């Protein structure tokens, strides 16, 4: 479940969306593309190029203007050769040429073209999924956990490629729980907690002990990383059916006061970022 979520990503920019599992990251990606299950209830607006994305526009734009890099090999058709799956993602230009080039770029050998998804290793599958988005020529790329299971060299290459894509005037939304990788390339980081954004901060704020961060949860998340203090935040994320009535993080927050339990704080601008906390300074 997602509620009270505000984010934006501009052309030439990489926005990383981070949060623990169950914070609604994949759901967000599917909502933007309009591929949520038919029983999903959706409210709110998504704008693309300043215009509201209606479901008709989503249908027209997905795969052309907005491309998805999904999570796992299950998103590839098990009975179609992977080369063909990449070629069918090409919207303009020579399909075979685009596929060969992108495979070369991701160091996928030419015989991978003729393989079926079940024959791919985890890393090859992710590179194939990346390839489908890269050849589509989309201006917005939404990558849903594109890096787990890849070796460091390929991760770096994938990340650099996202950077290239952004530098060429496109927008990239990188959905991940790997803050460390995200920081290498992202311009802005949005932190999700229990389906809502708690903070959107410039990437360079994630430094030191997190003094520059605004929200207690972002600070906690940053400090919980192994390379920092490695101190976990006590407690766990609330289940969507038992959300607190006030601030969603209040039950686990060290700064919580009586006021925090009354209503969910609204997003406010603070020091070149935005935050959903009444105590943040």
């Amino acid at each position, binding site marked *: 479940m997602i509620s009270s979520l505000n984010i934006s990503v501009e052309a030439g920019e990489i926005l990383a969306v981070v949060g623990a599992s169950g914070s609604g990251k994949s759901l967000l990606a599917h909502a933007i593309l309009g*591929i949520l299950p038919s029983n999903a209830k959706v409210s709110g607006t998504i704008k693309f190029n300043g215009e509201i994305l209606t479901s008709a526009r989503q249908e027209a734009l997905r795969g052309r203007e907005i491309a998805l890099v999904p999570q796992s090999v299950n998103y590839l058709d098990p009975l179609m050769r992977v080369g063909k799956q990449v070629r069918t993602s090409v919207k303009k230009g020579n399909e075979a040429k685009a596929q060969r080039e992108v495979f070369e770029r991701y160091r996928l050998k030419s015989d991978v073209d003729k393989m079926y998804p079940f024959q791919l290793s985890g890393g090859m599958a992710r590179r194939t999924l990346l390839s489908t988005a890269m050849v589509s020529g989309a201006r917005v790329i939404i990558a849903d956990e594109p890096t787990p299971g890849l070796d460091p060299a390929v991760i770096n290459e994938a990340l650099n490629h996202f950077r290239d894509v952004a530098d060429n005037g496109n927008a990239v939304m990188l959905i991940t729980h790997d803050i460390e990788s995200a920081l290498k390339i992202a311009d802005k980081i949005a932190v999700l907690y229990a389906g809502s954004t708690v903070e959107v901060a410039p990437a360079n704020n994630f430094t030191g002990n997190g003094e520059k961060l605004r929200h207690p949860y972002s600070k906690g998340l940053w400090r919980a990383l192994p390379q920092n203090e490695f101190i976990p935040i006590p407690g766990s994320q609330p289940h969507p059916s038992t959300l607190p009535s006030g601030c969603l993080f209040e039950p686990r927050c060290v700064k919580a006061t009586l006021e925090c339990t009354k209503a969910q704080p609204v997003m406010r601008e603070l020091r070149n970022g935005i935050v959903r906390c009444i105590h943040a300074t």
Partner: protein
Amino acid sequence: MTKVDKNFYIKLGKFFLLKSFRIATLLFAICIISFLLIKNSPIDPIQAYIGADMLTVGPEQRERIAEYWGLNLPVMVQFWNWLSALLTGDLGTSMIYRSPVSEIISERFIHSLVLMIAAWLLSGIFGFAMGVIAAMKKDTWIDKIIVWYCYTLASTPTFWVGLLMLIIFAVWLGWFPIGLSVPVGSLAEDVSIADRLRHLILPAVTLSIVGVANVALHTRQKMIDVLASDYVLFAKARGERGFVLFWRHGLRNIALPAVTLQFAAFSELFGGAVLAEQVFSYPGLGQATVEAGLRGDVPLLLGLVIFSTIFIFAGNLIADLIYYVVDPRTREGWRI
């Protein structure tokens, strides 16, 4: 020959070896069971052979016929005699048709085969199309009509549909003949293909409209599963929809299960043919089975049991083989 090919043929060889062993043991078991069942049934082979003249046959003559046929030997000896004859290809002589069982079966099978192939193709094609349409338009009126039709037909006995077809199309409308496979009273060489077709249509349609239900419901469910899969979701995310989506991912993923299901349904086809042929007096295997059972023709009945076992086994074998050879996950599985 590459390494992959070699491995494939070795695997295929093992597959056939295993299957041959299966059919051998299955047939042996079927032979014992059906022989014992018939031996212990109230069928009296002597009475079945002599028929109405039974009254004129005295106990002594009866005794001598039994001795001549070996009916007074121990059961296992009788079974052994029958089985060894069977192994040399001698299925015995039918008592009601007074000709070799193998001849009757092959002649009847040709008739049934035409009927079954027609019904098999019709129900396969229409059932598949209906299942796909229902799944693609799930929860719309067209889906509801198809599902309603399928449930109604799936719970309707074949012979009843046959009778209904006869009443409407043969009796009331007079479009088709009432029964048999050729016009009554005409010589074999005068029968044209058109005549045969006219006699074939009603039984074939009856068998198909019942068979369609099963195929359509299976296809619909499988298609719904495919449409709910991650790869179809991703295909939609890449802008595919409607017919392109169906063609690229839907058809590809349901064709194989549908085809194999169709081959595995040989048993239902055979069972349906027995009833439909009886209703339409169509001289096929099904009708011969009913006759053999009712009139106690033991050799013919046993021959038909063995033949139908092989027929159904062949259907299942083809289904397995298609999966084995066509599905890349089993075909190229050893590459990784």
